[in-house]
């Protein structure tokens, strides 16, 4: 009995693997050079961020390692560089390469954290609005509309400013990472909610849901067993795009001084700190972290584009 059971599970897992192997997803990935390249770069960047403490030549958080005399040194290919600092140093004398690696880590943590936050809010509200309809739907969607008409950036700036005013600058800096996750999550949930609602509505109108109702299944089972699994692919696609957006939002907030403090910089706050020195010719403090940020966001966007083409879900326009 046990053996048959395990053999059944094994055969089903192999078939799932086979299904993946034969799937259109993998097939199109194999044929899409841009997608392969993007994924490779993305994995490389995530790997660098995760291994930052081991890869980085210095620890930018450790004040003892910082030599203020070595500030604003250019990267290695420019005259006047110091071979100790491959990518040069910033205005405080921190090794730019190390700071970027650590900053990349902060940006990625906030990006993924904020998307997890948005997704949980947005999926809950979207499911509720789509399935219950009526007043709940009208209220939630009107809220989402108002928030979206304000643009997510604006909401994030306002919420960020409020938090900073409520908690005070010092506390804000200490808890910057969770606060930024919260801020960006609160600012961007409507995108999710609208996408989820749209696909719930589309699925709800399909006959398999009617069939489930005719069977006598409870609303909850219909919602989670029947409707939710079918809305996963739009959620998946929008998640990719939203990670990119969240990283940009974080950078924008940091650039405005409402994000990560300079003692624990993200890519955005690095760009900001370098911006003050750009007139004096120290372009690398701004532009090298900027380049890393753009490459990171670009590969995520390219992956998102590829996913959207392959999965082709019904996405909410706008």
């Amino acid at each position: 009995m046990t053996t048959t059971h395990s053999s059944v599970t094994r055969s089903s897992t192999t078939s799932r693997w086979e299904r993946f192997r034969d799937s259109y997803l993998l097939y199109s990935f194999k044929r899409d050079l841009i997608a392969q390249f993007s994924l490779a770069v993305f994995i490389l960047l995530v790997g660098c961020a995760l291994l930052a403490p081991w890869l980085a030549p210095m620890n930018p958080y450790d004040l003892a390692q910082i030599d203020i005399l070595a500030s604003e040194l250019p990267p290695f290919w420019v005259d006047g560089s110091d071979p100790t600092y491959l990518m040069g140093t910033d205005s405080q004398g921190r090794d730019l390469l190390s700071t970027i690696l650590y900053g990349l880590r902060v940006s990625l943590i906030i990006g993924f954290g904020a998307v997890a936050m948005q997704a949980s809010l947005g999926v809950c509200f979207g499911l509720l609005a789509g399935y219950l309809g009526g007043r709940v739907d009208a209220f939630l969607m009107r809220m989402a509309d108002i928030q979206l008409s304000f643009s997510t950036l604006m909401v994030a700036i306002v919420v960020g400013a409020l938090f900073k005013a409520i908690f005070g600058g010092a506390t804000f800096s200490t808890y910057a990472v969770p606060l930024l996750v919260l801020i960006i999550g609160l600012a961007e949930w409507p995108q999710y909610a609208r996408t989820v609602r749209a696909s719930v509505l589309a699925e709800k109108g399909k006959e398999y849901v009617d069939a489930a109702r005719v069977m006598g299944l409870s609303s909850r089972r219909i919602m989670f067993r029947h409707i939710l699994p079918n809305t996963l692919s739009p959620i998946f696609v929008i998640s990719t795009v939203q990670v990119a957006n969240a990283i940009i939002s974080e950078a924008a907030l940091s650039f405005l001084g409402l994000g990560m403090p300079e003692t624990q910089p993200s890519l955005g706050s690095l760009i900001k700190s370098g911006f003050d020195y750009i007139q004096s010719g120290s372009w690398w403090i701004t532009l090298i972290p900027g380049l890393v940020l753009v490459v990171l966001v670009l590969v995520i966007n390219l992956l998102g584009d590829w996913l959207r083409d392959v999965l082709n879900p019904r996405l909410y326009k706008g």
Partner: protein
Amino acid sequence: MIAFLIKRLFHALLVMFVISVIAFAIQDNLGDPIQQMVGQSVPESERAVLREELGLNDPFAVQYLRFAANAVQFDFGYSYVFNEPTTDVILRHLPATLELVAASTFLIIALSIPIGVYSAIRPRAWLSRFFMGVSIIGISIPVFLTAIVLIQLFAIGVSVTPFPADTGWGGWLNDLLSTEGGMPAYGRGDPVAVFGTWETNFASLKGLSYLVLPAISLASIMLPLFIRLIRAEMLEVMQSEYVKFARAKGISLRRIYFLHALKNTMLPVITVGGVQIGTLVAYTILTETVFQWPGMGLMFLDAIERSDIPLIVTYLMIVGLIFVITNTLVDLIYGLVNPTVKLTGKPA
């Protein structure tokens, strides 16, 4: 038509109501008008009296109504920092922001429609692929970074010498890759005053030159989105039965593209795009910071830094009003362009 307008007005009022409640809640919890009026030295007992006199101990709803009644007359109190009515401060900064947004909107519309249409008509052409590639890179660059890069290239200037300068072609390539700089990238210069307090950058070439870099960088955030939106919609419309039927009627391709397809493409673009143009106002916060453009965005950031609560609240209300007005206008335009909407609010 009138019913439609009334409906839109109701809707707008509802939105403004929500915004004002939020704005008031901020003011109520964070602003302390007593401190602003009398400063630190006044003892607590006197403050309490003042508080009572000013009605600050009244219930939330009563205070809100008072706030709303004043807000309708554009009276939001005095700015802590400037010590003048907040509306005056905003009005002083409004023209700069509106001109920046207008210039960017012009750039976006003038570029996105031809590029979007072209890349939909010839999806496989190398130029289309180039545009699509550039647009996804454009989406991935944060607007402030675009601004910084523009400053580096065109205001500061870059001189690179990767090629041997002594050969003729090397020098030529170096010159090609180097930029001169010198474009104005700080503030508005000396705008010309028209209609009383309204100062404009559009009146002189010199004024326009100050507008170029900020407008380009502000446009850079929406332009790729618009190109992609127009292309996607147009591609969808080109697949439609009525375009096929128009081809079967033997009509020229140009007429099919620019009448049959484009008119239908513009319908969703108006609704989505119109709202996006409104949100450009939010992005001015970033561009104005980089270029020190003396508009509302820079002012707002300043107000946040100095905790000038009345100014923040006023800014939120005014920007909210701008969004509501653009959204209503967009709906109106959509209703006028789309014959299937009878301006009764629902499609026939």
